[in-house]
């Protein structure tokens, strides 16, 4: 967690969209930005350069206020996927509360997916996070393209891990919100265990997830 100040009543959570270069992480955030009501979020900040799309990271912040008055800020980051930007990836991963791994469904990207996932596990360990316990969801993106790995093959690949799996096309804007909601739920579960979100702050998993992703789900719960 980036920041938790019980006295000031502020909690800042970090979620990270990880994955190989060009798998669609930035596009996921762009879609979330477009699909979710602006009342509960800030603006998307894209740090780019002329040469490449993401050499630093992108940031999309969300807000929700718990019935206790606790202000929760959810900062969603993307990492640069290129192998050479590993240092930046580590810095972004620092103190992450949850990770969405965005894989590219195309058959020819399978190796890149595997390499990037390995890199994720390594880096999590390096920044002191337990890959086995950190909230994690996996999204196979670009399902709209031809030449993609079949769903069954993907399911059987990940089945034993028990990690929630989503199929999406960020380009066509489906599967994106579902992935994000699942990430919010698993992250909530982990945070509730350590920070008593429901017992101390009166914030249920559904209120948390819906408040951040569904328009006008829980009146009075959302900030601004």
């Amino acid at each position: 967690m980036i920041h938790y100040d019980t006295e000031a009543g502020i909690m800042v959570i970090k979620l990270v969209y990880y994955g190989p270069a060009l798998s669609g992480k930035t596009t996921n955030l762009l879609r979330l930005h477009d699909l979710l009501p602006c009342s509960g979020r800030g603006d998307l900040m894209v740090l780019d350069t002329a040469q490449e799309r993401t050499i630093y990271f992108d940031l999309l912040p969300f807000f929700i206020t718990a019935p206790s008055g606790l202000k929760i800020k959810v900062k969603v980051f993307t990492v640069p996927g290129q192998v050479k930007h590993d240092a930046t990836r580590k810095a972004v991963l620092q103190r992450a509360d949850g990770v969405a791994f965005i894989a590219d469904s195309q058959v020819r990207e399978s190796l890149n997916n595997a390499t990037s996932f390995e890199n994720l596990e390594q880096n999590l360990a390096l920044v002191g996070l337990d890959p086995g316990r950190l909230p994690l969801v996996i999204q196979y993106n670009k399902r709209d393209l031809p030449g993609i790995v079949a769903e069954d093959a993907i399911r059987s690949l990940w089945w034993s891990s028990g990690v929630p799996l989503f199929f999406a096309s960020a380009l066509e804007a489906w599967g994106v919100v579902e992935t994000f909601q699942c990430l919010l739920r698993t992250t909530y579960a982990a945070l509730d265990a350590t920070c008593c979100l429901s017992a101390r702050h009166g914030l249920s998993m559904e209120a948390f997830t819906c408040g951040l992703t569904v328009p006008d789900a829980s009146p009075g719960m959302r900030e601004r």
Partner: protein
Amino acid sequence: MTAQGSISFVVGEEKKLTDVLSESDVLPLLKSVVGAGLDLAAIVDMTGEPLWFFVPGETAPGAMLPLGTALECRPIILSGDIVGRVHLSAGEGIDPALLRFLARVVGDAVNSMVQTNLKRMMVTELHTKVVQMSYDELLEKNRQLSASEQKYRELAEHLEMRVQERTAELKQAYARMLQQEKMASVGQLAAGMAHEINNPLSFVLSNLETLEKYVRRLSEHAGFCEGQLRQSGSDDLAGRVEDRRREQKIDFILDDLSDLFSQSLAGAERVKKIVSDLRGFSHIDEAEYSQLDVNIEIDRTLSVLSSEIPADAEITREFGAIPLIVCRGALLCQAFLNIIRNALQAKPSGLKLLIRTAMNSKDHITVVFKDNGPGIAQDIQARIFEPFFTTHEVGSGMGMGLKVVYDAVSSCGGTVTVNSREDHGAVFVITLPVNGRTDE
């Protein structure tokens, strides 16, 4: 940052407003906005404590915030969170719309500064704290990073200039909005009055006609009675009636009555025409685009202006045979009005104004306004279509006039040019397409 993995830097750590803004960023902005006539411009945190502020003259930190009677605030947003406010206040004299407008300008400027600075800081922090790479990689990344940082720095540096540009732009837009609002409300008022006047006017007109008929019948009847009396041989009675008739000046009255009626009818008809010209001029009854006869529109405009035209002004209309054109009538009349009024003001006595309309080409008409006023000096001709540009005394309400002409004519798809030499009058030439529907 020695051993691998011991990274102390965390991307995304919370930042305060004072982390991303500095005094040198905001003070010039606050100072310049106070220069527009405010009592105070400040940036305050969420508790309302001033972080930076500027008041005219005195700027000692910690001085009491003088709160003007008019107040405007704008939120400052840092990565989606409201972290402070731009706070402007002024005395009672200020136009509240202007204050609101200034608050918007400063709010926008501060927010884009926050955004730019935040990006720049994140890039710089990554740059200095994170990198653990081979020397070559480091060099390469340095190059990319500094290119990017340079980009953001340039952005920040140009920001103040951009703000100034935008301020001028917005000020003009604001003035034009005021002018347009004024025009719209005058037009609406005129149209509303025209409606109110039309009702009583139409019964005055029809009653006058009936009255004339009745009076004619009454006088006929009186004449008939007198004739009968004379024939009855009752000379005494007839003589008394005759005397009475002379005493009451009945002959004169009967004569005068028809004059009175025709004058009253003519007067009422004139009121009716003025009202309908006013309605026509405001084009309130029409769709935005309509087919209109430019010759008639010019006559209407002259009639609306008639009270402003001095007796010694000589206005010559040379109207050619021109087709109906499609355009925004209200705007066009406003353009004509401003040009004619400009001529009237440029030469209050002895004005000679020639208005000529003609077919110019297959699908364009021209309208020429040529006056014998003092003319427009060569060096300012290019600027007269700018807003605020005026050679009239400040406060006479002019200055917007020719800009409005320019905008109106452009939005009808036409052009307006001026040709003038000092002391030789001015010639305005408006060219309008026959079909002036623009997509705008």
